[in-house]
């Protein structure tokens, strides 16, 4: 047993080895060319531009961001619930419709989920033009699929015994279904739903960098004009928005939800549902370009006309996600192993927060000032961005567990580090790793973000093909993204089931 635990610990640290090739490449590619510009960038962080005009712009832009984020969050929760129920086993146990629908639905949702919202955004923008509703749609699609997956997974936890006891009452099947799924759904929305709002704000900011509007667009415009002082003002304003939401959500601990409130929510949800469906149908029906596109024979998986360097792009993308995952997995435990000093940890927490807030797109653009665009550079960006997230999780979990073991090992004379490792980390390593396995699915999808900007892999290819309106290439790239993501997820599920 002890040996097995040590294995998990070892696995958490081993990926640090990815730093060998990464450091090698970074050192090779480093040049001091843009150092001056970089220093400007850092200096500007301490002197953000503040005047009436820019505050007004920030407020208008934040409003836009909030509108996009909130609307897409709401819609994705509502549809996520519906589709989550429709793709759960329990639904088909109670309602007599062909199980084939479940598999079909899960398949479609998997494909939608495997593509990052940024990729959705670029494609939809190209087909329907730039407006806010396209941004909302782009965020909604993968978010609905993610929420649906979480909801249906939670519904699988309803015990067979409970199902049996309610079904033997022989009431209306829908009544039985709703009675059984009610509490798990409310619980999931309470625990998971609000976290999704934060994700939605962050995604809106990233899509903004690609022109969808909101604060992200301002960040990008001021960055492009190399107006760093202005850019920092916008970054600080989006950070304070996210912080503000976090504080509020910490305060609001809903114990018992008022039933009138739920009733109101259900009514609003129904309205939103109908409106969204109406909007979507309208969007699809009136678009001749889309129908022409879908009708043309050359579009679907025309593997004869592969984009240039197609295989290399795929290889790069996979390597990029492996390297980034390696960083995201190994850096947090490694840093915590170095020292358990209180101030050191506070500093780490601060940096983890900062790195989660600045969009990875901007980070890689900064790094590009004194580095060649390379796979390692993209991996560093994406890896540390995600390490910010895994660090937070690990640190939170470690602070929750009992420290007695740690103190006991220390009292028998073990060093700080060894006691931390044996007394604290070992207990967490299993759950940490299984979270990391889940995180690496996300990392693969996020490669799109850095890949588009950092001239690496499939994302780059996607942007080139889109700007040439080469739809057959676009389809091949999407197909590749999606299939790699799905295969990766299957592999990770295997890993996770071994860990548990």
């Amino acid at each position, binding site marked *: 047993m002890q040996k097995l635990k040590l294995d998990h610990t070892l696995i958490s640290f081993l990926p640090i080895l990815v730093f060998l090739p990464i450091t090698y490449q970074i050192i090779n*590619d480093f*040049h*001091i*060319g*843009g*150092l*001056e*510009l970089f220093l400007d960038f850092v200096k500007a962080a301490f002197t953000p531009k503040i005047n009436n005009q820019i505050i007004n712009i920030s407020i208008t832009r934040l409003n836009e961001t909030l509108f996009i984020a909130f609307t897409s969050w709401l819609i994705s929760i509502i549809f996520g619930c519906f589709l989550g129920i429709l793709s759960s086993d329990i639904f088909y146990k109670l309602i007599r419709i062909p199980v084939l629908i479940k598999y079909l639905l899960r398949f479609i949702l998997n494909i939608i989920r495997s593509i990052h919202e940024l990729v959705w955004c670029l494609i939809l*923008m*190209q*087909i*329907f*033009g*730039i*407006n806010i509703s396209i941004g909302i749609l782009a965020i909604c699609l993968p978010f609905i699929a993610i929420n649906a997956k979480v909801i249906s997974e939670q519904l699988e936890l309803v015990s067979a015994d409970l199902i049996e006891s309610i079904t033997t009452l022989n009431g209306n099947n829908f009544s039985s279904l709703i009675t059984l799924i009610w509490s798990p759904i409310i619980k999931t929305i309470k625990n998971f739903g609000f976290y999704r709002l934060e994700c939605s704000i962050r995604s809106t900011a990233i899509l903004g960098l*690609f*022109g969808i509007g909101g604060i992200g*667009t301002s960040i*990008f*415009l001021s960055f*492009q*004009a*190399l107006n760093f002082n202005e850019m920092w003002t916008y970054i600080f304003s989006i950070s304070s928005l996210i912080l503000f939401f976090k504080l509020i959500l910490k305060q609001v601990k809903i114990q018992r939800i008022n039933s009138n409130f739920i009733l109101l929510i259900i009514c609003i949800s129904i309205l939103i549902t109908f409106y969204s469906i109406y909007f979507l149908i309208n969007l699809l029906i009136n*678009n001749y*370009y889309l129908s022409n596109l879908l009708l043309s024979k050359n579009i679907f998986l025309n593997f004869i006309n592969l984009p240039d360097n197609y295989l290399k792009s795929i290889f790069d993308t996979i390597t990029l996600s492996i390297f980034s995952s390696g960083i995201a997995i190994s850096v947090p435990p490694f840093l915590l192993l170095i020292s358990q000093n209180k101030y050191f940890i506070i500093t780490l927490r601060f940096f983890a927060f900062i790195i989660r807030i600045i969009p990875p797109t901007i980070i890689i653009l900064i790094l*590009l*000032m*004194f580095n*060649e*665009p*390379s796979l390692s550079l993209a991996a560093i960006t994406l890896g540390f961005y995600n390490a910010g997230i895994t660090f937070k999780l690990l640190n939170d979990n470690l602070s929750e567990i009992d420290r007695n073991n740690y103190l006991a090992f220390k009292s028998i004379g073990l060093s700080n580090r060894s006691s931390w490792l044996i007394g604290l980390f070992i207990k967490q390593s299993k759950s940490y790793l299984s979270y990391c396995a889940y995180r690496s699915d996300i990392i693969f999808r996020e490669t799109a973000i850095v890949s588009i900007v950092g*001239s690496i892999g499939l994302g780059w290819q996607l*942007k*080139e093909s*889109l*700007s*040439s*309106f*080469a739809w057959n290439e676009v389809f091949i790239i999407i197909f590749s993204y999606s299939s790699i993501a799905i295969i990766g997820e299957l592999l990770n599920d295997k890993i996770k089931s071994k860990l548990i």
Partner: protein
Amino acid sequence: MEVKYVPVINYVGAVTGFRTKNLDLVWFGGLTGVQARLQTPNSIVIAQRDIDKEFKSVFIVNKKLNLTPAKELSDLKSLRNLRFTFGSENSTSGRLMPEYFLNIAGVKTSEFKGKKPGFSGSHDATIALVNSGAFEAGALNKQIWEKNLKNNPKRTKNVDVFFVTPSYVDYHWLSQGDLDEKFYSGFTKKLKKAILNLNENNPNHKIILEMFNAKKFINSDAKQYKNIEEIGRKLKKIR
């Protein structure tokens, strides 16, 4: 008549906006204008600036390289193995034409350092990045380069002009073909006349013309852009 200005920050977005008829009249670059026209039947080239008939790009390099300026096109070869940046992917003067001239000189974009060129996103950014040394060389719109040279000496102090390209046609106004039906008959003609009649001597007009860096707008038609279309197809930016 009410006119609404819609700022669009990406090139492809403008093409799509035009195709979906969310935009009636767009100021397009050469390449994006052709892309938009191919996707939007009946659209009409309204006018171009005086300078667009003979537009040029410049290749710039960082002074530290001490590179002797190119005398002829084939000298572009000495840009090989440098850190090189274009402007935006779909820019005619910041990417398409420079890449075309590089190809003629026998330089492939994969021969730059890092096996790929950078894309700064805008002409101004190209200057700043080359000036700072983040990139060693770049290509951009000649007119924007001259404007920066005049107004922003600090930003251009580390930059030398390496080569000025031969001329080609670039920017133009493109309008939807059905504006007469949408507004009133004769509208398109009137629009064209209004644009062509902008006069430097009228102070109000002057403000507009200055923003476009032009002395006046001149007549233009789709035929002029045949060459751009061919180059676009050659470089796979038009399929």
